[in-house]
């Protein structure tokens, strides 16, 4: 039992899509019937999924199949309409790199701020800051404000922070395309190392090559339901067959 790190039980999630959303009281009063046309869109429908410690899981599927929503539910950014999600262990999600970076602050200050969003204490950050700078290869620029960074440098810094926070569970959404070839290789190496250390990871990606390289299990989502779940190669092959 203690090996289950993420347990998703009967989770359903739907979003209300407003065609013309009344955001103010005035609009709500004036057009309370006519303008507030809305539609319920079911994104996830009764999902059951158990992820065990040390597993590296890929969520695959076409756009709009609910992969990112599932990831957001696991991080507790959004909450399910019904069902329950239990997470055991320290979880870090990289949904978007550099969320909360402040352009006027230096790279170093942003490391502190970003790492604190991930729930690290000052001591923990201080012991990691050298590793983070080293990994990002931005030592020469680390005291410049991040608004002077190129987008590649920005991503490199953000990824370096996120990957060094020592979470037991990492949720990663479509960010394997960080920086140049050299840096990407480095990221993959780091993730292989984390995998060896027994960290649990969940990816959302469209790069089937990286899925096959890294993941031990693949979950194929289709229309808000799990269509297939199992060995990476098998699922990926079936998926490519179906979408081709």
């Amino acid at each position, binding site marked *: 039992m203690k090996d289950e790190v993420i347990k998703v039980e009967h989770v359903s999630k739907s979003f209300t899509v407003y065609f013309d959303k009344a955001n103010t009281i005035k609009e709500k009063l004036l057009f309370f019937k006519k303008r507030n046309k809305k539609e319920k869109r079911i994104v996830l429908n009764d999902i059951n999924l158990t992820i065990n410690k040390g597993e590296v899981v890929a969520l695959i599927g076409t756009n709009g199949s609910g992969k990112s929503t599932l990831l957001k539910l696991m*991080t507790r950014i959004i909450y399910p309409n019904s069902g329950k999600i239990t997470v055991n262990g320290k979880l870090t999600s990289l949904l978007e790199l550099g969320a*909360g970076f402040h352009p006027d602050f230096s790279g170093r200050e942003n490391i502190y701020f970003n790492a604190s969003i991930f*729930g*690290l204490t000052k001591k923990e950050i201080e012991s990691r800051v050298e590793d983070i700078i080293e990994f990002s290869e931005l030592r020469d620029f680390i005291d410049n404000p991040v608004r002077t960074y190129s987008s590649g440098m920005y991503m490199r810094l953000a990824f370096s922070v996120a990957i060094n926070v020592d979470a037991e569970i990492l949720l990663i959404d479509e960010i394997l395309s960080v920086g140049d070839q050299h840096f990407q290789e480095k990221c993959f190496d780091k993730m292989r190392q984390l995998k060896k250390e027994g960290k649990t990871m969940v990816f959302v990606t469209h790069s089937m090559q990286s899925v096959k390289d890294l993941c031990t299990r693949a979950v194929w989502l289709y229309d808000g339901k799990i269509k297939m779940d199992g060995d990476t190669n098998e699922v990926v092959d079936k998926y490519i067959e179906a979408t081709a």
Partner: protein
Amino acid sequence: MKVFKDLYQYRELLKTSVKKEVRGRYKNSFFGVLWSFLNPLLQIAVYAIIFPIILKNNIENYVVFLCAGLLPWTFFTAAVSQSSFIFISNTNIVKKVYFPREILPISVVTSSLINFLISVIIVIALSLVYGMGLSWYLVFFPIIVIVQYIFQLGISFIVSAITVYFRDIEHFIGIALQVLFYATPIVYDAATIPGSFQIIMKLNPMAYFITAYRSIFYYHTMPDWGGILLMLALSIVLIVVGYLIFRKLQKGFAEEL
């Protein structure tokens, strides 16, 4: 009680966001943090010139009188009005990262508290300049501040969460604060209010706080403990109810923003 554990774990984030609120507001300005000092000082100067002329009052040492009311009032308005858009201005992190959402309203109220504590130097300095001296009743200052802090935290939880769903609240609060300013004995003395309006002084929580501050800073008398206890009770109810509302509403933040 999970919330306390969470907040403890994320204490560094709480610290940095308080710092960001206090320092960031005046970043890129020439005087920097000195503005937390200059701002109230200039405001006092304006009121101190205008109100004695309009109200034709004959309150002795009016500047100190005004100051003792205006500074805690600024503490209140800063906390409440900033709470109303704290989630909107932090949309990018709320939508992308998990962290205990309580941190944002708490850091707003805490940073306005810090600004208030800095500005209290002004009252003390003015009391000395006007030769009024200080009374030992000042030892009760922390108690009043703590009650007001809890009170504002409760309001902040409610206001910050509801504004995410109804953006109008932000504008409504601007007006409400202006009305409340005149319904609170800041520029005038509560005792000079005609009898039929005294009920306002009884119903307005801010009137109790301002009166208490004024007792210790201006009148050099024992604050009205009945009023403070009443406010403490109200504040505790408010923070519990406010937190429950907040906890319920915060689940939809990422979707509503």
